């Protein structure tokens, strides 16, 4: 497995939250997922404009929670945080940029002016 076995002793120096946190996080994730799924089945919610943003926010929260606690990024060296968030930002901006470029909006806005 290991190219370099060095510094493995240091791994346990990192702070890892304990199992009570892990269980709480699991519960939280389950609850949010349940809300998400039920939202899908509540027509009043599902058809309102709030649906998409609320879904994005909820899955965003789940994303952050898993990364922060299960991937213990919250407790890690700031370097790891940079290694993850930097690419994540580039990826998200690229994704949003692409969606804009492929939407009809891109052409329409241009013709308005």
């Amino acid at each position, binding site marked *: 497995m290991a190219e370099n076995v060095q510094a493995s002793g240091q*791994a346990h120096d990192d702070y890892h939250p304990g*199992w009570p946190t892990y269980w709480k996080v699991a519960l939280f994730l389950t609850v949010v997922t349940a809300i998400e799924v039920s939202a899908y089945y509540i027509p009043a919610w599902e058809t309102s404009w709030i649906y998409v943003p609320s879904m994005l926010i909820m899955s965003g929260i789940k994303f952050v929670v898993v990364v922060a606690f299960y991937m213990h990024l919250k407790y890690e060296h700031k370097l790891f945080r940079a290694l993850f968030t930097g690419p994540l930002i580039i*990826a998200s901006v*690229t994704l949003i940029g692409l969606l804009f470029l492929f939407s009809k909006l891109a052409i329409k806005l241009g013709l308005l002016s």
Partner: protein
Amino acid sequence: MTATTNPQAAAHGDGHAHGGGGGHYTTLGLDNRKVAIWTFIGSECMLFASLISTYLIYKGKSPEGPYPAEAWTNPATGETFPAILNIPVTSASTFVLLMSSLAMVLALSAVQNRNLPKHTTWDRILGSSKLWLWTTCLLGIGFLGFQAYEFTSFIHEGLTMRTNLFGSSFFTLTGFHGAHVTAGVIWLFTLLAIDYKRGLRPEDATTVDICALYWHFVDVVWIAIFTLVYLIK
């Protein structure tokens, strides 16, 4: 061979520099493998961003069905196709994958705390890396089972990779994710094999940790896919 080093170096060289000793010094005191896996995960963000973008770009662009969230009748043949996506099943598989992440952290925690005294049954359960690795594996396999079920039922309903833009982008995106889960399961089995062979010790925590990071990342990607692909119409 002191001549290569500037004179002060020897004096100021701290304990990290194992001059000539073959010990491994790392600049930040971090494990190389962890740096590498986080870099890899950053890179995977771009991979999945490309896949998800494609799915979203092609959403609603397909001139012919079947479609994800609405029924479709083929005007040429009169054949009807149901809405493809099956939310209850996918909700269940999402839950399974989330729980596998929980099992994974517990496995890592068990390895890290291997040497702590175990007083209660509960301690012993929590302290069993084998138990939690098996749980993670089985939940992962469970997720793959759901996916296999999903794929076959979609194919029965008339949607394959070749059918239309939705089919191509859907199967490729979720298939890529499934392939990642499969790789993760193989990885987990490898860890289990080590655990059975010689036991995973606290020194192996990083070895388990990098697998765990990978596993959680795959889970996190699914969180995004579940919302963007399944729940948002």
